[in-house]
């Protein structure tokens, strides 16, 4: 009898510490707690999932999206796309709102910092389509900000970021603090 109970409980409970590295082609970022992970998941709007506040388009890239893994129903939080440019994952996943897709990237698990089920998505595969790279954020930003066209990375040209820096300074402590820092460090 105990064998049956144990089997049922194992099936019912969340599957923890699974290895999702099989078949992954994720490139390392040399992060302390990274592990390659390729898995199938449903793209969900996290706010919708938790509270029932559910726009049809999952927020069109402006809300954080989750990946509910088919294998164990765990909701993974994709924080980063594949670009080394301070860019998130929501815009990459938004076209697949409420769809089942396959993703490949890096899982971050760091117990000391409370990081659990954190993800950097590098590739996406929807149905029979080929894999696509999760690297479109900067292109989408450029389309939204034609007025900010120019040389250099997006984050040096972003109007909202530059407005805050112009007002609060790079340190966020005001222009005088910036002046003092520059005098002491350059």
């Amino acid at each position, binding site marked *: 009898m105990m064998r049956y109970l144990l089997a049922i409980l194992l099936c019912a409970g969340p599957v923890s510490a699974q290895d999702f590295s099989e078949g992954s082609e994720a490139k390392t970022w040399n*992060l302390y707690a990274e592990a390659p992970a390729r898995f199938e998941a449903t793209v969900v709007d996290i706010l919708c999932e*938790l509270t029932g506040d559910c726009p049809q388009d999952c927020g069109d890239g402006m*809300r954080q999206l989750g990946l509910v893994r088919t294998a164990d129903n765990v909701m993974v939080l994709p*924080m980063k796309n594949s670009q080394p440019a301070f860019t998130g994952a*929501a815009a990459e996943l938004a076209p697949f709102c409420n769809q089942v897709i396959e993703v490949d990237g890096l899982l971050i698990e760091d117990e000391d910092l*409370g990081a659990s089920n954190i993800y950097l998505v590098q590739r996406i595969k929807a149905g029979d389509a080929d894999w696509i790279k999760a690297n479109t954020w900067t292109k989408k930003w450029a389309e939204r900000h034609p007025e900010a066209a120019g040389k250099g990375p997006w984050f040096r040209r972003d109007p909202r*970021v530059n407005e805050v820096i112009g007002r609060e300074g790079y*340190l966020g402590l005001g222009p005088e603090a910036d002046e003092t820092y520059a005098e002491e460090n350059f």
Partner: protein
Amino acid sequence: MQNWLKISVILLTGLSAQSAAAAEGTRIKVTGEIIDTWCYYSGVMGGPDAVVGSAHHTCALWCSAGGIPVGLLAEDGTVYTVLKIAKDAQSAGGDTQLSLAAHTVTADGMLYERDGLKYLVVSEVVSDMDIVNPTHEDYGTVPPFSFPEPAQ
């Protein structure tokens, strides 16, 4: 129904109830810094003490504008991933969260927990203490290039 089957049904019912309860929110008031979660969790820019406060203000702006989730790092070290602030549900690059980058705030809202992470739906920012953590005094700016060398 055999006894073992009855016990199984009871246990499974209990587990289902537990899962459902995990989606129910709890009202909390919490004080902490609005941080860039990726740099904090990944260690890509250095240790956790270096990716908060004034040292990381500009990078926090970049990451927030770039759609990386922001978190509220509470005084006890707990990180709450912020999904909404007042009426602004744009948690991937929204204006409200951008305006609070590296600020220490007290937030009143609903806490949701799922799969090892805590999520916060802020109903009200009760107080905004601006940046109170002058980490640049110990770490400079993180990353260093976030403070560009002034033109001569």
